[in-house]
């Protein structure tokens, strides 16, 4: 059979190639590295088997993605080899059929890819046997695990990618097409996972769009329990099955197209450019009897120059040619995609959970145009491919023999090509800037910060891309084999992009990296530019070194062997080259030393592993002091001198401590903070230091005379924040001009801090720490009686800051004054507060309002005025609602204070609620869902002034329910009271979108809730359900009782059991089952309406028949589901066309499908079960359906 013969030949041909084995080694190495660095850590912290199905499948998927380059080389070669070797006239004239030729070639390439990818399971099997892995992470060897991943992930992926890449190369007859295709295929899952799934929340679409199943794995990693990850094989069902079928279908379709479009014929190159863009003229018809000139050759003797000016001219000519070749070929598509992306997706992406954001330039730059976004990927891919294309242009065209013999020094083509690539990047950045500005215009934002665009796009981002370009060019010159060069460049990129996953964290070791930077509308770049510049300069030195090496080894003529090229290169070392080498070495050594001095001498360099180890050592060394009786703080007094311009703070403080225990205390334990220098510890009675562990931050001071019960002690200290130079992670910018913001955790804390211990079970095991639950159990009596949480202090602070800034601390502003060109503020509390506080200083605009006798202040950045009115409205409505429901607000003022930072997150310190700039950018007025989101968020934060700052939950399981869920519940009441129930319904719909993100239903019951989802979503939903069933008044009564019992923060601190008892007390017996389902058991309702039909009844009424399905399941933490018996009261609703309810009443619903018939007074449009989505149902949009009307 000819197919078989072609297939065998193809396979044999590929196995004989050295690059094939190089690829195999690369995939193997990558698997080992990714497996042992990233996935082993995940398995350890996740608590599942490293060699289980999840890791195996995930690494297989990543392996398929990284093997794309290999697949592109193999498929591209299989499809175009005849063209490249000019064999096609010989081959195409043989009597082989198209099907046999293409089929054999394709199958050979596919088999080769599939065989190469066997490196993944081999690598993983080896990785699981490496020494140093905890035995608990390794399950007994199961061949089925590897077979499962290979058949479900690897083989389909190899088929799909080989088919698409083969088709691209076969149809265009250019192997570059398969590389471009590989780049796009590589981008698809990344783009889908990051943008469509994580950013837009369209997980299902993203999972389908992903040819590799990467997003499916990403979803599984969120949905599966550790037990499932460690043992459950991937089943070909659901979305994984449809994904596989979809892409296999696409692959087969593409192959069919290839068969149809491929011709055994001489290929005339075609360009994809539209006709009007092509510069070609129709071929001049050469008349056969064209005048044969017989005059002798007379080439005019013209002057030729070889001076420096000529060299520059020549270089520019090469630059222009390289640039044109790129932008007039496939590069144009990449550039067009970037522009389309920015224009189309820009407005879409300027949002937070669907709420539009004001598109300030900082957002555009961070969210649209950065190296991690599509345009950034494009820049890298353009350079990966075109560095090779440009370097190889003459040789690919067969012109190098002529070009190499022209009287041009090596540096001219080298620099010209580098400049050509640079121009492409400049064009890309210019397009991004245009796209960004266009997005701002479209969104009605007219504050164009052109300077900021220029600095970020053409300064920071461009320099990063240029460093990479220099590396890519050097690699191509040195490697001197085009496709191996591409491979090395991509590996080099992957190595830098995933360095931390590979265990490399120091930026002096990751080519082109820097500590990162932040830009804030408030504080600008702060101290971040300098370290970035130093690192860029350091890597610039390396780039120069690479450039010189590349120039010396510049391929010219026919020298192939490395030895010969090195010899030639030595001969080319000229004076300028020598100087450049010296300069490069100088920069590397001098700047490198300076950077090293900053990162490792001025600061202790601490990679993340070290930080984990430090926490373990803290526990090992000082854990024995846990629970040692310590005095309580009753007052804190601070004198803070801020130097925002220098980024420094000097804090002198005094604590008043009282022994509230029944026994004398003879030693004070202090926990100091890492970021600051703590010294000057003094007590107002004789003392001696017993232990000062600066590294781990624990100190013990012995009191000469023990502190008797009831006695008090005054302690003084000095804390200085003086960042010197920069660290590997940049500069700590907590104190900065127009943007100082730090919290009380800089001050020494009293006693051993169990919070600083490692809590992850796997990490504890790794560091030899005894196993313990991550949070104390709900029933843990010690947690209830630990009064430090409920501590109340009198707080006073004098803050000096820059003359133009306003400093903020908790309490009443007693006095402000100016001295020595500085601005001083004196704050003091009238009522004791919880010790969690924050200090702010910036040039704030202050908006003042009042609610009864409470002063409301919004201190915000002058350029962020948008949400001030909504904030004030939220605060006023909240205070009104919460003082009525929960008791008085204990302070005379409440402030919302803006701090630099792009996130949305707010934090409710006593009196002062911090919001980041991201929150200020929320633009709810353009949200067509018509929800006042900022109002609701502010209400939530104000509610924390009760839930958290008055009622302080014990540090045990379920604390999140008491603070976060109850705050949301109170906020819902505020929304309801201000805007009405429909608005609340729309707001809850936004919260429900969290269900769209993949998440397993396995969890603890709400009473033990401690993660984000249960605290911020499921908890509030449960409280809302209770409110709708039991009544708002009853629930509020229960909460008021709970608050009254615990508002003063004394032990025993409340737990969810106290809440549960109060809720039980107000819930009538027939609804107790609901209470159990909502709080005691992790229950989910599965409600849906299959069909609803209506027929007219007498008197304009309609009889509506609903076919509904119902089920109630409990899911335990392992993911096991149990069906719960049900006879629940659930609303049945029928609605008229414009949404007006015609019928809304509770029915008794049993499990399974059932028919409900109701008669309604008007013509129905929609009907269904639980139409208001009161119950916990993760698939909530199928609760109602359109009503079909009979005649």
């Amino acid at each position: 059979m000819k197919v078989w013969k072609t297939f065998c030949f193809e396979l044999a041909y590929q196995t004989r190639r050295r690059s094939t084995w190089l690829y195999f080694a690369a995939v193997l190495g990558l698997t080992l590295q990714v497996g042992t660095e990233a996935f082993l850590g995940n398995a350890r912290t996740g608590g599942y088997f490293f060699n289980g199905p999840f890791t195996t499948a995930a690494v297989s998927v990543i392996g398929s993605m990284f093997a794309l380059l290999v697949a592109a080389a193999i498929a591209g070669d299989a499809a175009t080899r005849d063209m490249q070797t000019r064999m096609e006239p010989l081959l195409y004239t043989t009597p082989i059929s198209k099907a046999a030729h293409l089929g054999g070639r394709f199958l050979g390439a596919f088999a080769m890819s599939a065989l190469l990818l066997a490196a993944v399971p081999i690598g993983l099997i080896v990785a699981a046997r490496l020494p140093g892995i905890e035995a608990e992470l390794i399950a007994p060897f199961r061949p089925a695990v590897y077979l499962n991943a290979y058949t479900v992930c690897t083989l389909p992926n190899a088929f799909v990618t080989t088919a698409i890449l083969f088709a691209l190369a076969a149809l265009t007859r250019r192997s570059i097409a398969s590389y471009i295709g590989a780049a796009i295929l590589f981008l698809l899952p990344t783009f889908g996972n990051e943008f469509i799934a994580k950013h837009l929340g369209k997980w299902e679409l993203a999972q389908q769009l992903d040819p590799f199943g990467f997003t499916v794995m990403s979803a599984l990693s969120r949905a599966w329990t550790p037990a499932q990850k460690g043992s459950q094989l991937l089943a070909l069902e659901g979305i994984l099955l449809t994904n596989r079928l979809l892409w296999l279908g696409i692959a087969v379709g593409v192959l069919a197209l290839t068969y149809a479009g491929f011709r055994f014929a001489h290929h005339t190159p075609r360009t994809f450019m539209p006709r009007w863009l092509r510069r070609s003229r129709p071929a001049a018809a050469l008349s056969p009897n064209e005048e044969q000139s017989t005059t002798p050759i007379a080439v005019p003797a013209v002057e030729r120059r070889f001076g420096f000016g000529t060299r520059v001219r020549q270089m520019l000519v090469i630059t222009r040619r390289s640039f044109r070749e790129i932008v007039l070929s496939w590069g144009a598509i990449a550039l067009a995609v970037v522009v389309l992306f920015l224009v189309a997706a820009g407005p879409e992406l300027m949002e937070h959970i669907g709420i539009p954001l004001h598109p300030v330039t900082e957002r555009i730059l961070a969210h649209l145009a950065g190296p991690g976004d599509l345009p950034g990927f494009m820049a890298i891919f353009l350079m990966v491919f075109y560095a090779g294309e440009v370097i190889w242009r003459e040789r690919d065209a067969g012109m190098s023999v002529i070009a190499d013999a022209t009287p041009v020094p090596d540096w001219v083509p080298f620099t010209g090509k580098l400049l050509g690539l640079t121009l492409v990047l400049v064009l890309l950045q210019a397009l991004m800037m245009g796209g960004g500005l266009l997005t701002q215009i479209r969104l009605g934002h007219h504050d164009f910060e052109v300077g900021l665009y220029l600095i970020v796009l053409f300064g920071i981002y461009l320099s990063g891309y240029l460093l990479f370009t220099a590396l890519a060019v050097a690699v191509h010159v040195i490697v001197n084999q085009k496709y191996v060069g591409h491979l090395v460049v991509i590996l080099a990129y992957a190595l830098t992009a995933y360095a931390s996953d590979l265990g490399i964290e120091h930026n002096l070791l990751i080519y082109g990296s820097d500590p990162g930077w932040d830009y804030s509308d408030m504080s600008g770049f702060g101290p971040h530019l300098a370290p970035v510049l130093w690192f860029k300069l350091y890597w610039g030195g390396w780039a120069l070194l690479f450039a010189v090496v590349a120039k010396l080894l510049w391929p010219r003529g026919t020298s192939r062997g490395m030895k010969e090229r090195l010899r030639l290169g030595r001969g080319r070392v000229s004076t300028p080259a020598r100087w450049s080498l010296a300069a490069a070495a100088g920069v590397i050594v001098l700047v490198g030393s300076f950077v090293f001095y900053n990162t490792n001498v001025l600061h202790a360099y601490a990679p993340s592993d070290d930080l984990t180890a430090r926490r373990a050592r803290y526990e090992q060394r000082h854990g024995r002091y846990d629970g040692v009786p310590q005095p309580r703080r009753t007052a804190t007094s601070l004198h803070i001198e801020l130097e925002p311009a220098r980024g420094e703070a000097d804090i002198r403080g005094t604590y008043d401590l009282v022994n509230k225990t029944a026994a004398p205390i003879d030693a004070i334990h202090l926990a100091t903070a890492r970021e600051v220098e703590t010294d000057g510890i003094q007590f107002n009675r004789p003392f001696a230091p017993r232990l000062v562990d600066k590294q781990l931050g624990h100190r013990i001071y012995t009191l000469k005379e023990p502190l008797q019960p009831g006695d008090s002690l005054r302690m003084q200290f000095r804390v200085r924040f003086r960042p010197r130079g920069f660290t590997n992670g940049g500069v700590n910018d907590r104190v900065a001009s127009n943007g100082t913001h730090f919290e009380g955790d800089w001050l020494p804390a009293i006693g051993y801090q169990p919070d600083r211990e490692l809590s992850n079970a796997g990490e504890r095991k790794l560091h030899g720490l005894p196993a313990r639950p991550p949070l104390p159990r709900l029933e843990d009596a010690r947690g209830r009686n630990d009064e430090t949480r409920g501590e109340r202090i009198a707080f006073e602070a004098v803050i000096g800051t820059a003359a133009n800034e306003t400093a903020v601390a908790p309490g009443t502003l007693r006095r402000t004054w100016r001295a020595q060109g500085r601005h001083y503020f004196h704050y003091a509390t009238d009522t004791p507060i919880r010790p969690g506080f924050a200090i702010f200083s910036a040039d704030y605009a202050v908006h003042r309002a009042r609610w009864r006798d409470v002063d409301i202040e919004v201190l915000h950045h002058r350029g962020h005025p948008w949400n001030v009115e909504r904030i004030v409205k939220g605060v006023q409505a909240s205070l009104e609602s919460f003082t009525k429901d929960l008791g008085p607000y204990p302070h005379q003022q409440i402030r919302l204070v803006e701090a630099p930072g792009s996130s949305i997150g707010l934090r409710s310190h006593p009196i002062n609620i911090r919001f980041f700039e991201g929150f200020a950018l929320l633009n709810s007025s353009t949200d067509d869902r018509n929800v006042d989101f900022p109002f609701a968020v502010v209400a939530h934060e104000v509610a924390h002034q009760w839930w958290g700052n008055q009622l302080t939950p014990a540090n045990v399981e379920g604390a999140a329910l008491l603070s976060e869920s109850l705050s949301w519940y109170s906020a819902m009441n505020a929304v309801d009271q201000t805007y009405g129930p429909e608005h609340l319904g729309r707001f809850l719909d936004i919260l429900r979108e969290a269900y769209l993100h993949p998440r397993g239903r396995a969890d603890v019951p709400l009473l033990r809730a401690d993660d984000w989802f249960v605290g911020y979503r499921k908890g509030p939903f449960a409280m809302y359900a209770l409110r709708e069933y039991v009544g708002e008044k009853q629930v509020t009564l229960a909460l008021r009782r709970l608050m009254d019992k615990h508002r003063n923060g004394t032990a025993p601190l409340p737990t969810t059991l106290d809440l549960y008892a109060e809720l039980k007390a107000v819930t009538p017996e027939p609804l107790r089952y609901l209470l159990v389902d909502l709080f005691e058991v992790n229950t989910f309702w599965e409600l849906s309406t299959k069909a609803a039909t209506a027929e007219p009844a007498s008197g304009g009424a309609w009889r509506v028949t609903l076919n509904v399905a119902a089920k109630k399941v409990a899911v335990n933490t392992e993911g096991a589901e149990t069906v719960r018996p049900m006879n629940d009261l659930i609303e049945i609703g029928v609605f008229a066309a414009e949404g007006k309810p015609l019928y809304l009443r509770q029915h008794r619903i049993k499990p399974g499908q059932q028919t409900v018939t109701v008669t309604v007074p008007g013509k129905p449009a929609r009907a269904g079960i639980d139409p208001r989505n009161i119950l916990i149902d993760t698939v909530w949009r199928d609760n109602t359906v359109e009503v079909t009307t009979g005649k």
Partner: protein
Amino acid sequence: MATAPLELRIENLSKTYTNGLKALQNVSLTIPRGMYGLLGPNGAGKSTLMRTIATLQEPDSGAIQLGDLDVLRQKDEVRKTLGYLPQEFGVYPKSSAEALLDYFAVLKGITARGDRKQVIEALLRQTNLWEARKQKLGGYSGGMRQRFGVAVALLGNPKLLIVDEPTAGLDPAERVRFLNLLSELGENSVVILSTHIVEDVSELCTRMAIIDKGRILLEAEPLRAVDELRGRIWKRVVEKSDLAALERQHAVISTRLLAGRTLVHVYSETAPTGFEPVEPDLEDVYFCTMNGHVANGAAVQTLTRTELRRLNGVAS
């Protein structure tokens, strides 16, 4: 600046490829102004020699001197006076002839726009590409492409012109024109023409060398070499079946089919029986040299030594 006479001197040039192929073995040649033919079969080492002279390949040992210039070290200087038409080359298929020639003109140091325009027009007209100057090179025929290569090689009035197998892709008319063009250039420059077609050399070259397996077998003036052979080449037409016997008895240098029978040339100092004398041509010189018959070799050796003596005298 004292300029040595324009002449290319190659001394003891050797090159062995990594696969063991000895491409050049101790090659020494002196090439004066004028057309110089390098004749040899495929794989003789011609292209290696040409590439080495064209600064594109490093020899293992030996030296090349062009006038004052050390070709192996002063590559950039040599390239300023070099025109090179390789045996095989490609073009950017998407460029037009005019644009690409302009590009090369800049690379060859013709920076003034007006000069460049003038030179390009002249060259394109001379190579009969003027009409097709806007056409993409990808659509050029083999001959047109070859002529384009000539135009590039002639840019900047080279003093050293190296053309490697230039006539291979040309039709007969083009070939004649091209060779004429080369010989005109030879009036002022060193022109090295490598070929395996004997007529290319016999028609134009004032001097020539025959190279095989990396060695120079003969260096001579074509006319004198032919003269030397006069009276030593004999021909006879035989049946194909008799050829084997004939080859055992005589020094056969070439055979050619002629109307179903075989025309045999043999080398002999004296008239062999049954043969007619024949007026020798360069092809006979080539085949005698290639076949390396002892007697023939002696004649060649004499000639070569004489030549060398004369040339050495000139140089010293």
